[in-house]
């Protein structure tokens, strides 16, 4: 009888999946489910964060993540300011701490940051007094993407534990891959990475994941295939001979999908290079939950913002 259990996250910031406990992830999922209900109501807005101001600081381009965070913040009634490095004083030589401190002097409570360098979020959290949410730091972590991926798997299958997930493609440059591996493992799933040897980090097996270089074998093993984007902007040296050759070896098309003995689920963190990592007919097929991922992204980010705002006394 007893008032419902009172609980909070174990961390003050969301810098990476590494810092979260299994209980934290489950709490985020439970909260996200209720926010998903809110998003399906005639009025999709709740007043919880009306006295919170959030700065979205993007030192790197983003469409989906930025829009998703912005929408989540608006649905929670927070005040927001947006900042894109390309149109700011960063290009005049201002340092990260100076930029952010100036923004905080305007009384901002939370910062959502994307940065091209790994560890930028951790660095910032040690120097400023605001809740930091990492929206992607270099090739390191992208925690909200991993949370929404696992949330989508949980929604599709009921639970994540015991499921087999193959992460396929450019694992080397992907922050989505590392966060996904950590998140899925914490929830009890089996993880495999698959890609050409040049795009698989050398010691990745030490994370306890299976490594496979044959696409068909990986697809036959898994329940869910998460197809990563080839990060064309990070291919400064050649990791494979040509896009055409990559897509012949590691591209997922309808013919391959139909030749498997079971129906697997296809995910993609976006943006899709259609015809490279997956073809259009796969991306738009019934087996793809790519658009569900986008929808869940808003609910998961609302949950993260809501739970972290509670940490702000």
């Amino acid at each position, binding site marked *: *009888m007893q*008032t*419902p*259990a*009172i*609980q*909070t996250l174990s961390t003050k910031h969301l810098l990476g999946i590494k810092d979260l406990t299994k209980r934290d992830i489950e709490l985020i999922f*439970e*909260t996200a489910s*209720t926010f998903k*209900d*809110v998003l399906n*109501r*005639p*009025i*999709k*807005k*709740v*007043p*919880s964060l009306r*006295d919170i101001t959030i700065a979205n600081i993007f030192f790197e381009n983003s469409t989906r993540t930025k829009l998703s965070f912005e929408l989540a913040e608006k649905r*929670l009634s927070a005040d927001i300011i947006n900042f894109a490095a390309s149109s700011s004083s960063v290009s005049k030589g201002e340092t990260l701490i100076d930029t952010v401190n100036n923004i905080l002097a305007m009384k901002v409570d939370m910062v959502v940051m994307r940065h091209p360098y790994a560890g930028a979020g951790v660095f910032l959290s040690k120097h400023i007094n605001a809740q930091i949410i990492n929206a992607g730091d270099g090739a390191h972590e992208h925690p909200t993407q991993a949370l929404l991926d696992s949330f989508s798997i949980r929604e599709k299958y009921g639970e994540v534990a015991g499921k087999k997930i193959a992460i396929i493609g450019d694992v080397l440059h992907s922050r989505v891959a590392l966060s996904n591996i950590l998140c899925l493992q914490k929830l009890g799933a089996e993880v495999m990475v698959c890609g050409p040897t040049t795009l698989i980090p050398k010691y990745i097996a030490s994370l306890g994941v299976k490594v496979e270089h044959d696409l068909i074998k990986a697809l036959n093993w898994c329940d869910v295939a998460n197809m990563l984007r080839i990060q064309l902007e990070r291919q400064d040296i050649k990791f494979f001979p040509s896009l055409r050759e990559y897509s012949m070896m590691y591209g997922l098309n309808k013919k391959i999908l139909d030749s498997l003995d079971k129906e697997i689920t296809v995910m993609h963190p976006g943006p899709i290079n259609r015809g490279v990592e997956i073809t259009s007919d796969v991306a738009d097929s019934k087996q793809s939950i790519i658009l569900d991922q986008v929808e869940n992204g808003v609910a998961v980010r609302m949950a993260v913002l*809501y*739970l972290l*705002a*509670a940490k*702000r*006394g």
Partner: protein
Amino acid sequence: MQNLPLLAGQKFQITIQRLCRQLIENHNDFSNSVIIGIQPRGIFLAERISAELKKIIPAASIQKGNLDITFFRDDFRRKEGLLRPSNTDIDFIIEGKNVILVDDVLWTGRTIRAAMDAIQAFGRPEKVELLALVDRRYSRHLPIEADYIGIKVDTIDSQKVIVSWKETDDKDQVLLLSEKTE
């Protein structure tokens, strides 16, 4: 802790039945009225009331929903910890309806304020009424009163009023919990 039963046994049943009769007096066959239980503890009362109403007027179809008010509370970030949100299950339109909000205990009135906010997301009701099984009078923080009241009790802030239900806690009763004074 000292437990003092305020309402139990047959008197509990009679109180529920009286509340139902009062509702019927104002809402006839409930064709334009809906019952909304406030999560987490008001839903049991809402369930009991609607079951009882069906016994009295079997022909009526009574619409009942559950409303979660967690995200509309005004004490977010002002106290330790977070309340776990519950489900909102309202699968009908509230626009133009007479809404009867149902909660077990009316105390400061803050929950009801949040509920009135939360209900707006489902449309503009014609009228909103409040039914509470227990009214802890003289302790309101807001100008809110119930339209239908089971019992009124005089309490002090350190006391707790707990309503238990036979479905979940074995027994229908209202208890007053007081700290033992040495």
